[in-house]
Every structure is written in structure tokens, then in C-alpha cells.
């Protein structure tokens, strides 16, 4: 029986070594390992993994091609539904999606679908991407705002259908959160991201950087003056949240967005670059999501003793299990059930410590997770030199506030129906800009859905 084979372990950089460098943590499978792991798939008649994939990748089919050794065909199958295999194989929360529903996981370990997807994605980078058919130009022009996962996915599908597509990116580099947010050690920028972006450009998509829609141009000027027939907004959820506690504006308190942008987009860890960043000392990261893990592991690599402070227990950590596991291996300390009350500074206004209170878990709240309740009289201080707030992000209001007729929700998300259509004719939206911070794969799915709706709207 195929399922007697244990899950094939993936080779990783030694935790002690990798905690001091920015090289990728996971080496991924080689062909032999991938084929062995692929052979574990039961090829279920009703594959639950496909149903739990936000973009419905035909998982058993591509896995079958791996067992046969036809990786090119496997790549073709994935590319029908996803163009970011190397990215999603690395950053998707597989344990809640495909792998979480794998029948093998009921009694043993699920198939390592993410690692197999990554293997196929990386193989096509090395061996030439699957050939994509691009329809002849249909004369329609679409502007895509943002070059993150939603924008790249939407632009690709539109270009394949023959539209002339231009992506407008506010920053100086394409990729959105994949470039400014996710660290090099989890998603290599030159080796992987740059190639993913090249793939999109190869479809004929143009990318103009340094254009801030809402400031440099507006949706109205794009449609009225530059002649775009439709617009897709994939501007993400870029606004960092703070706790609103005393001491948050002390020197040494930064948002995870700032810290990670300095490290990732601005290469602050590389001495060749001019960007300043805090190194060494002790760093407290507040939060328990993937961004918190990215920030704390980056701080560690920059020489800090790094801590996670999270108000619930380990069970409720919203981060991917793999990231939590990796963080622990690298020597990150987790201070669970503890919530900051105040940040204290020295006489120069520089962070000295975080005053926290212990928490205990009560009844489940709206999110279904047990509500943390402060334990009276349990205040204590954690000494540190830097505090990084990783509490989540909300959509940037810049576009909504400069575009007439575009409704937003109370939380700042752009109102869009299930196809991505907004309240403004010809304007579509998807990804974090609509939902608030979510995942790469959901954003990609929304981008693809919107592309379909845009093609219908344009009568293509």
C-alpha cells in the first residue's frame, strides 16, 4: 500500500546556521524525493484537497504526473489554475487547505502537497515555464492597480485573453507583499519572485512602478484620459495597526510593515544597501500571525534575542504551523498568554521595556477562539530595545477616497460582489483590498475571478 510510506521529510538548513543568515530555510524536494512523496497519493475519487484549494488546482492529477516523471505536464496542469506555484508552494497555509483535508492525514500524515507544488514550480523556473497560449490582441485595455498576488493573477488571465494590460505599482519593485512583506529566507526574491514577475511580463503585461494611484493618477484619469476600458484594484491591505497603548511612539517601536519593508524591499540586512535597521539587542514582537513570525525571525537573523508576545495560547496562533515550528527551532522565545499594557522608555525616549499582563482563556468569542482575559495583578516587564507591532493591517484608503462612486465597508475594504465588481461601473477589485488581510492564494483566486468578470464586462 502506497500509504505505508511515511511522509518524505524535506531537507532544511540547520536551524543554528540559518538563524544567522537570510538564505532560504527549506531546500525543497529533489526529483527522487518528490516522486517518492507523490507515490503516497491515494488518488481519491472525490479529492477533498481540490475542494479545499481556493483556486481548485487539480492536485491528484499533477501529483500523478510527478510519479510518472513528466514534470512538464505537472507544471501545465498547475498553471491552468495557478501561475504562482513556487510562491504558493512556499507560503500557502496548506494545513488548513489541501493538506488539512487530505484523507491520509486522518490517521497519519497528509501528502506534502505544498512541497510537491513548490518542486514543480521551481522545476519550471529551471527548465523553462510551461508554454502559455496568448490570444491575439482584442483591442481592450485594462489597468491593474498593484502588483501583488491579486494583481499579477488578474493581469495574467487578462493578457492571456488578448487584453492590453498595464500594472501600476506604487513601490519601486513589482510583487507587492511578496516583495516587501515576506522575507528572503521564506521566499527568495531574485531566485523565485523576480522569475514569477518575468513570467507575467512574458505574457505581454507591462508594469509601471512608482505610480501611486490616488495621487500620481486617479482611476478617473486612467479611464478618461489614458483610455483604459476597465480597472482592477488589487492594492492590498497595507495600513499597519497599532495597539493604542502608552509609549507606542517611543523610539524603537515600529510596525512589522516598517521593519519587514526595511529588511525585505530595502535589503537592510545587506551591507551593500544604505537602509538603516535596528540590529542586535532584544526585540519583542507583539502578535501571533505569519507577519509576526516573519518579523521575529528577521530580528533574530539581525542579531537580536527575539521574543513573541501573544495574548492567547499557542493553540490559537494564527500563523502557519511550519513557521511557528521553524521559529522555535531557530531559538525564538514564545511568551504566550501575555498582553502589552504599556511600553516604557528611558530618559531619551528610547524603548526600555514592555509592561505586560498575564492572560487566561475564557469563553469562545466571535472568531470562535477562546477570549483572552487579563489576570488581575499579574503585571510584569520584559526588557527590550525594540518593539515590533504585528497586529494586522487594514486596506489603504487612498484609492477609495479619490475615486467617486466607490463604496467601502466600515473596515475600509472596497465593496465588491463575488465576481469582483465594485459599485463603480468598469471598476473591479479583489484580494486584501476587499477582504482585509488574508492569504496570497485567496488574493490570487480573487484576481482570477475578477479577470473573468472583466472579460465578460468587456464582451471578450
Amino acid at each position, binding site marked *: 500500500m502506497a500509504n505505508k510510506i511515511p511522509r518524505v521529510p524535506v531537507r532544511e538548513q540547520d536551524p543554528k546556521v540559518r538563524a544567522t543568515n537570510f538564505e532560504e530555510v527549506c531546500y525543497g524536494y529533489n526529483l527522487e524525493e518528490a516522486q517518492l512523496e507523490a507515490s503516497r497519493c491515494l488518488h481519491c475519487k472525490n479529492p477533498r484537497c481540490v475542494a479545499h484549494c481556493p483556486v481548485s488546482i487539480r492536485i491528484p492529477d499533477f501529483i500523478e504526473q510527478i510519479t510518472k516523471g513528466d514534470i512538464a505536464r505537472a507544471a501545465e496542469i498547475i498553471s491552468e489554475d495557478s501561475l504562482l506555484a513556487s510562491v504558493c508552494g512556499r507560503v500557502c497555509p496548506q494545513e488548513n487547505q489541501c493538506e488539512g483535508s487530505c484523507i491520509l492525514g486522518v490517521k497519519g500524515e497528509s501528502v506534502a502537497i505544498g512541497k510537491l507544488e513548490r518542486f514543480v514550480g521551481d522545476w519550471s523556473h529551471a527548465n523553462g515555464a510551461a508554454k502559455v497560449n496568448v490570444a491575439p490582441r482584442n483591442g481592450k485595455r485594462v489597468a491593474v492597480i498593484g502588483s501583488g498576488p491579486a494583481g499579477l493573477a488578474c493581469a495574467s488571465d487578462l493578457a492571456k485573453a488578448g487584453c492590453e494590460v498595464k500594472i501600476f505599482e*506604487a*513601490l*519601486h519593485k513589482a510583487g507587492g507583499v511578496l516583495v*516587501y512583506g515576506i522575507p528572503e529566507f521564506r521566499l527568495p526574491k531574485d531566485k523565485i519572485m523576480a522569475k514569477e514577475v518575468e513570467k507575467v511580463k512574458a505574457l505581454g503585461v507591462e508594469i509601471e*512602478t*512608482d*505610480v*501611486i494611484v490616488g*495621487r*500620481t*493618477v486617479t482611476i478617473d484619469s486612467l479611464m478618461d484620459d489614458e483610455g483604459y476600458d476597465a480597472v482592477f484594484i488589487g492594492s492590498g491591505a*497595507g*495600513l*499597519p495597526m*497599532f495597539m493604542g497603548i502608552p509609549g*507606542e*511612539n517611543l*523610539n*524603537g517601536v*515600529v*510596525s512589522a*510593515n*516598517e521593519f519587514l*519593508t*526595511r529588511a525585505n524591499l*530595502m*535589503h537592510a540586512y545587506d*551591507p*551593500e*544597501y*544604505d*537602509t*538603516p*535597521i*535596528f540590529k542586535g539587542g532584544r526585540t519583542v514582537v507583539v502578535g501571533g500571525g505569519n507577519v509576526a513570525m516573519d518579523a521575529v525571525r528577521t530580528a533574530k537573523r539581525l542579531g537580536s534575542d527575539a521574543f513573541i508576545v501573544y495574548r492567547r495560547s499557542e493553540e490559537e496562533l494564527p500563523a502557519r504551523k511550519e513557521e511557528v515550528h521553524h521559529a522555535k527551532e531557530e531559538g525564538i522565545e514564545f511568551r504566550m498568554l501575555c498582553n502589552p499594557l504599556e511600553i516604557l522608555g528611558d530618559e*531619551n*525616549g528610547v524603548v526600555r521595556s514592555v509592561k505586560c499582563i498575564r492572560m487566561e482563556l475564557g469563553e469562545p468569542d466571535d472568531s470562535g477562539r477562546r477570549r483572552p482575559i487579563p489576570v488581575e495583578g499579574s503585571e510584569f516587564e520584559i526588557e527590550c530595545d525594540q518593539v515590533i507591532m504585528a497586529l494586522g493591517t487594514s486596506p*489603504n*484608503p*487612498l484609492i477609495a477616497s479619490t475615486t467617486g462612486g466607490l463604496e467601502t465597508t466600515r473596515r475600509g475594504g472596497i465593496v465588491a460582489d463575488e465576481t469582483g465588481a465594485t459599485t463603480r461601473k468598469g471598476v473591479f477589485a479583489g484580494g486584501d483590498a476587499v477582504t482585509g488581510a488574508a492569504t496570497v492564494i485567496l488574493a490570487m483566486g480573487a484576481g482570477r475571478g475578477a479577470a473573468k468578470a472583466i472579460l465578460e464586462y468587456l464582451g471578450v
Partner: protein
Amino acid sequence: MFKILEKRQLTRDITLMRIHAPRVAAAAKPGQFVILRVDEKGERIPLTIADYNPTEGTVTIVIQAIGASTKKLCVYAEGDSICDFAGPLGHPSEFVAEDPAALAGKRFLFVAGGVGAAPVYPQVKWLSERGIKADVIVGAKNAETLIMTDEMRAVAGNLYIATDDGSAGYKGLVTGLMSELIENEGKQYDQVVAIGPLIMMKFVTLTAGKYSLPIIVSMNPLMVDGTGMCGACRVTVDGKTRFACVEGPEFDGSKVDFDEAMRRSRQYRDLEERARKIAEERAAGHKCKIGLDK
């Protein structure tokens, strides 16, 4: 790439550059700023807009070479190109959206300190083009460090100069000249706008308060992206945290916590100082063996 069409040395440390950036030039308004990057390894540097010409597609910036990155920029010559120039960022000055009828009778006093004369210029020019002649005080250490006085004179109602050592105009601080105008020369104003070093804006705000004049200041905190994404530019205004890049850069000066802003502006100074030293040592052919540049 964005080409430097003109480069002019205004003082020893202050350089003017006119950059070809048609999209920014077409959208720019007084009070806004840009973020530029010199090369692939450079920082994102926020700089206020000193002038713009939508017809030519150019934007003028004025750079004071203080940090490693601004020094690197000032090495670039006319005809060279820099790799990024994004903007305009931030809100335009409040008066841009004001009712022209109400604006017509308004008496403005602009107070510019040092390189702050650069962002003041497009504001005074914009008003002048609409028939509103604003008074302007330009302050500097001495006559050698004064900038843009000729340009300013052409658009201002009255131009007053203050230097610390009296080598040009009034001898003393801009706040002293401000009091002089109001108390001894019978000048009356409805609105004061101050742009310059934080310490100067703090004291102009106090002086404006003394005469019960509304005061607007333009904050220039640390920034990374300039689009609201990083929060490095947090400023406390009226007890609330605001992001200067998207909610500013101009705020009611009487509500700004200047002491916090001054402290926050030092956040990376030590690190920048170290970066500058390393850059100098490298330029001199030194390779660090004890890992200081790691």
C-alpha cells in the same frame, strides 16, 4: 529612470535639481512631496517639491546633503538619471481646496527656515498666480546659506530676510522678525505657515500663538514607503497618532507634539552616522575586518 535636466549648487551643502518626471509634474500641488531613490541600493528619500512645471514635465527638488543617501544624490550630475521618483505624495496645502472668494482677502505670512524655503516657494507662487500676495520671511544662519531669495521675491508681497549673524537682513531669529513685523510695523495676518527645522516650527508656532494666529506646519518625519504602509512617520497631533505621509504633511502647528517629533527624528541617526562613516572609509579604500559594516 528619471533624468536630471538641471543641477545647480545653491549653497555649499544645498543643491537644486530639476527632474524629468511628467506624471508627478502633472499631478503636483503646493504642499506635496516626492520619494526618490538614487540607485538600486539607495534608500527611499522623501523630499518636498520646490517647483513643478506640467508643460515641461519637470519637478524641482532642493537637497541638503546631510546623510549618506542625500550626499550620494548630490554627486549625480546634470544629464544623469536616478532610478525612482514617485509622487506627488501627501495632501496639498489646505488653501488649494479653499473657496477662491474666501481666499482672495486672506493675509498669509510664510516663515521659511533654511532649506524650508524650497517647499514654501510653490505655495507662495500658487497664491501669487491667483492674485494673492503673501508676505514671506526667509531665515538662515548667514547670507551664504540663504536660498531662493530671488525666486521668492518675484512671487511674494514682501520678502523679509533674517540671519542669525545679521549678514543679510534682520539680525536674529525668524520669530524675532515675526514679532517685529506684527508689533512695530503694524502688519496683520490671518494665517501663518511655517516650514523648516522642527525646532524652528515649534517656536514659530509659539509666536503665532502669542498673536492668536492660526498656524500650519509641514512635518518631515522619517518615512519608508510614503503611502501609509509603514507608519515610520507617526506624528502626535491633538493627542492622536497620525501618519504624516498620508494624513499630512501639513498639520495645525498648535496641536503638534514637536518634542516627540524631534525625538523621533533621531531614531536612526546613530545608524545613519555609522553608515556615513563606513561609506567614507570604503571610498578611501578601507575594508572593515571587524564586521562593523555588517
